[in-house]
């Protein structure tokens, strides 16, 4: 086989010397050596295989979360993830919403955990929307180009702070600082965690808002100025409405980050699975529950599977948020390309 190929190549080199202008190997011509063609297509399929890596991993994450998580549904039942029916002395049932998987009468209600997640991530998103959108507007519309060149990387550095550092700072400094200000019920509470989360979410919202505003064609600004509008009128009545979908996508993505963040809430939210809407009380989020309990649980127990079930819930929420944000961003891109 090799000999044949060599012969072929030899004959080709002979041809080349005769009339070399016909033997250029361009991908568009049919005059390509067979060995080259085989090699090229092997390389191509190698890249195709690698190209699907991200898709394969997303599918694998799906499969392996569901594989373990569905055992929890089988063993415990879907209803028990919402409430636990406790038999009272007088023979009636009472619905308890508690996360208490280690007790003998194990309770697996996700309600306090979901409440904890919302109680930390929603305030964080509100704070971050205020600061993030403001910073995005400043970067895209107000700062002069030279300042922007320095300030944008600073936002990126901001985003690069490891979350464990933010959790640590909130734990040792932030908690005492805000305790003096608000006198909360618990020293570590949802509010402290929300402040910590804002550090993560603000850069996300700021940089995506900046992108969205930046992608608005300059013609719109010029037209607005031409009609006598001031800078702020242009920003508030022309640019922001035009970039509305992009800005809202950035807020969605920021919210997704807040829901999925682990270390900050694990260190600063107090980790008590309370049912409460008081922001100054300790809460326990879904992510913190997985992080805190996975290390101690015995593999194959109901508790173990239920942690994977929490993983499914988390994954589904963030997956949906990301998908919606991406659809919005894609639509915006289509609209903005004239």
């Amino acid at each position: 086989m090799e000999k044949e190929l060599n012969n072929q190549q030899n004959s080709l080199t002979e041809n080349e010397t005769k009339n070399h202008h016909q033997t250029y190997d361009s991908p568009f011509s049919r005059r390509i050596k067979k060995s080259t063609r085989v090699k090229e297509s092997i390389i191509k399929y190698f890249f195709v295989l690698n190209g699907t890596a991200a898709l394969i991993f997303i599918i694998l994450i799906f499969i392996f979360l569901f594989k373990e998580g569905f055992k929890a549904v089988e063993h415990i039942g879907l209803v028990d993830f919402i409430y636990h029916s406790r038999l009272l002395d007088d023979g009636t049932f009472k619905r308890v919403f508690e996360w208490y998987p280690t007790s003998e009468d194990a309770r697996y209600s996700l309600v306090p955990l979901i409440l904890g997640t919302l109680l930390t991530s929603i305030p964080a998103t509100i704070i971050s929307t205020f600061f993030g959108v403001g910073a995005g507007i400043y970067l895209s519309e107000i700062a002069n180009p030279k300042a922007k060149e320095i300030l944008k990387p600073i936002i990126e550095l901001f985003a690069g702070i490891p979350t464990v550092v933010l959790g640590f700072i909130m734990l040792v400094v932030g908690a005492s600082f805000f305790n003096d200000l608000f006198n909360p019920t618990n020293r570590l509470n949802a509010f402290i965690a929300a402040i910590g989360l804002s550090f993560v979410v603000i850069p996300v919202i700021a940089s995506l808002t900046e992108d969205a505003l930046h992608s608005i064609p300059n013609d719109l600004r010029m037209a607005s100025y031409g009609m006598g509008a001031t800078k702020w009128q242009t920003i508030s009545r022309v640019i922001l409405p035009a970039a509305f979908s992009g800005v809202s996508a950035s807020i969605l993505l920021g919210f997704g980050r807040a829901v999925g963040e682990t270390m900050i809430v694990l260190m600063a939210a107090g980790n008590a699975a309370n049912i409460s809407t008081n922001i100054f009380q300790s809460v326990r989020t879904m992510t913190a529950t997985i992080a805190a309990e996975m290390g101690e649980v015995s593999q194959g127990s109901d508790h173990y599977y239920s942690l994977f079930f929490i993983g499914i819930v988390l994954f589904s929420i963030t997956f949906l948020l990301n998908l919606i944000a991406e659809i919005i961003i894609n639509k915006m891109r289509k609209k903005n390309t004239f």
Partner: protein
Amino acid sequence: MSELQLKKKDITGFIFINLTRLLFLFLLAVLALVLAKIIIEGIGIISPEFIFSSPKNNMTEGGIFPAIFGTVAVTFIMILLSLPLGVSSAIYLNEYAKDTFFTRIIRTAVNNLAGVPSIVFGLFGLGFFILFLGRKMDEVLQTGLLFGQPAIIWASATLAVLVLPIIIVSTLEALNSVPKSHRDASYGLGATKWQTIKNVVLPQARPGILTGTILAISRGAGETAPVLFLGAAFFLPNLPVVDLCIGNYCIPMINPGEQFMYLAYHIFILATQSSNPTKTLPIQYGSTLVLITLTFLLNITAIIFRYRFRKILGRL
């Protein structure tokens, strides 16, 4: 109308524009305060001894060298796994794939992978790499319980999946910025597609790929949640090193089958789970300072690289 009159009329505009300016300044001030606090509290303990020695006395004294070593080892193997995969994935998407439904799904998958919570990656690493892949390898190779337990290799593999989108996206950007005319010129000279990619496209995209690599390392080194149950250890008396011997020559190598200490995890356990968190506070600040210096240096390098890269491209 003069400039002055315009400004006078637009009082709300004046207020709001300065409000965004103030917001931004406030953010910078908070960031500076946090950094200053870490530096002031942490700088006192930083010494060669702190960086190059092991923890002593139930972790209340001594240094953090094993944690630094573990972080370097894990991120090193992580980048070995994820760089080839990410770069070739981006090559497929940018050079070979046409804009079909399938490739759009892949792009969506890349974006979605970037948004998966890091703790879910931890679950995935445990469920897939350790309990499925590792245990299956043990079964097939008859090695007892060697692969099916938390170890450096599985933590690296999981982090490799986590940073894959970063590498893919930055490589895509770099490949995309190589002008089509360069590719056409290469084809015109008789090069095949692979020759063109290898000799024309990739060399030009190298700074962009390097930027992605550095960002990925910095992200991997800062992650804590995924390694929580993938082999990050509270304290290890020995470094995860094994001597690889060929004949009489022995080279110390990272042992990918062992557990490891991790700088980010080290901060977490010292602050929340050690016996005396107040006594170890200086060590916590010191470790934080080391970690944040590491990630900042990496990020700044990446930013400078990208800035230069874009500047060069701007001239083309």
